[in-house]
């Protein structure tokens, strides 16, 4: 069974067709990079996976999207429950104006069934996984807004991991960060792959080549090329892919 499987997925916003007949499948514990020029549909595809597009007016979808073999757009699926299995990290760091501890505990408190000692354990575990624990362990009560941009983004990753999703979505997670912070997040993605399946949108071709196992190239709402990252960058099959990854458009 695939972790993620899209079968002829098309998406409209009103009369605008944002995705056109996209099909792909992704194995467990792999990293998938979505690349393509702005407006190509890669973010739309990412946001389909945790049903964040539901809130956009005029959103309509056709086709089937399966996670762990389950159709996530079937009427029986509660998007709130889905999002506990599918974590998301956004482009800009979005810490809540609470303490570091409360930020990571946020998703856990929503579920109302953990004791405070368990929450403390999960917070530490998540912060360790996000490689932030050593930097903040003495300041857990400090406001998350006082952290640097790179630390804030790792905090957001920890916050997503604390809920224990099995699939992690990242929407250009390093585009607002400096090179050193970017390197740390990329290293983190490498480690997280042991336990998670990750889908990452990126504008940075080198990043896609560095962190991903699979790469999907979107252009004007269509999936142009999909394959192993190795082959993708060394031997692209489509002329459009070649033109994009060599920087001739986009």
């Amino acid at each position, binding site marked *: 069974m695939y972790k993620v499987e899209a079968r002829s997925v098309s998406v409209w916003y009103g009369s605008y067709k944002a995705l056109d007949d996209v099909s792909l499948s992704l194995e467990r514990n792999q990293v998938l990079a979505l690349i393509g020029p702005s407006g190509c549909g890669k973010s739309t595809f990412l946001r389909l996976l*945790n049903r*964040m597009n539901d*809130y956009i*007016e005029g959103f309509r979808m056709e086709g089937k999207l399966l996670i762990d073999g389950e159709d996530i757009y079937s009427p029986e699926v509660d998007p*709130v*429950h889905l*999002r*506990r299995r599918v*974590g*998301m990290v*956004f482009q*800009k760091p*979005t810490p*809540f*104006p609470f303490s570091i501890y409360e930020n990571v505990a*946020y*998703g856990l408190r*929503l*579920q109302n069934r953990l004791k405070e000692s368990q929450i403390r354990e999960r917070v530490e575990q998540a912060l360790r996984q996000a490689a932030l624990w050593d930097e903040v362990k003495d300041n857990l009560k400090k406001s998350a*807004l006082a952290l640097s941009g790179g630390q804030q983004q790792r905090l*957001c990753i920890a*916050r*997503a991991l604390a*809920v224990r999703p099995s699939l992690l979505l990242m929407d250009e997670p390093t585009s607002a960060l400096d090179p050193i912070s970017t390197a740390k997040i990329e290293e983190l993605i490498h480690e997280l792959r042991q336990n998670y399946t990750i889908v990452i949108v990126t504008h940075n071709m080198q990043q896609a080549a560095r962190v991903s196992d699979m790469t999907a190239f979107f252009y004007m709402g269509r999936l142009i090329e999909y394959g192993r990252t190795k082959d993708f960058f060394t031997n692209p099959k489509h002329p459009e892919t070649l033109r994009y990854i060599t920087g001739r458009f986009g």
Partner: protein
Amino acid sequence: MPKVRKRWGELLATLLVSVVSWGAILVLGGVVGFIAYKGASVIGWSFLTEPMREGMRKGGIAPAIVGSLWVTAVAVIVGGFIGTAAGAYLSEFATNRRLKRAIEFLVTTLAGIPSVVYGLFGLALFVVALGLGASILAGGLTLALLSLPLLIRNAQEAFSAVPASLKEASLGLGASEMQTFLRITLPIALPRVLTGLVLATGRVLGETAPILFTVAAYYLPTYPRSLFEPTMLLPYHLYVLITSGVNVKETYPMAFGTALTLLMMSLAFTLTAAYLRFRLKLKYRV
């Protein structure tokens, strides 16, 4: 030399703007100073804490202060709840765009209705139809209605100002829309909501027309014991002292004392709002 001429023009413009703004400040200062000058000699501990005596010619204005605070409290509590809820609905929960536009249009229209019309409406609905009689409750509800457009708009803006990225982050962690509102949007917007409430308090305190037919008593030098009684209020008492007292010449100075009291109370609320906003803005950076 064109350069020099341009500088002269700028200088002139700067001068004009300064003169106009200083003029405005002077006028404002003049009004406050005049009231303070005329009122200060009347105001004292006994004036603020004692009831009126001998047909308002002697004694203080304490019952009017207490009555005003009661009516204002009813208005702000009722208006605050409804206004905040309506603002939250418009900003966060309304999915039907047409309905939302219609409500917004209605709110804007309500804001333009003269306050005396609210008074008449309050008389017809609360005093007569609902049988509350002229009472603190009827007056407070009328003032709540009057302040609703302001409170709804303020709450709506406060909730909309909370960054969408934070709301999305919360939803992305598996929070429902209501959980997101209660745990993220409301706490972050609260400083602004409260600021609006306190500002509205200052305004409601000074409203005269809506209380005329719904609660205000001409002469009732006792303290209200329940929400179902009429009471004296500062704005109406001020009007009575100037125009229709037993002996207007004698009560005229006391009107300035009453005006100064009202002014100071309003000012206190406005300053509280400014302080609240400043403090809480530092905390949440929004």
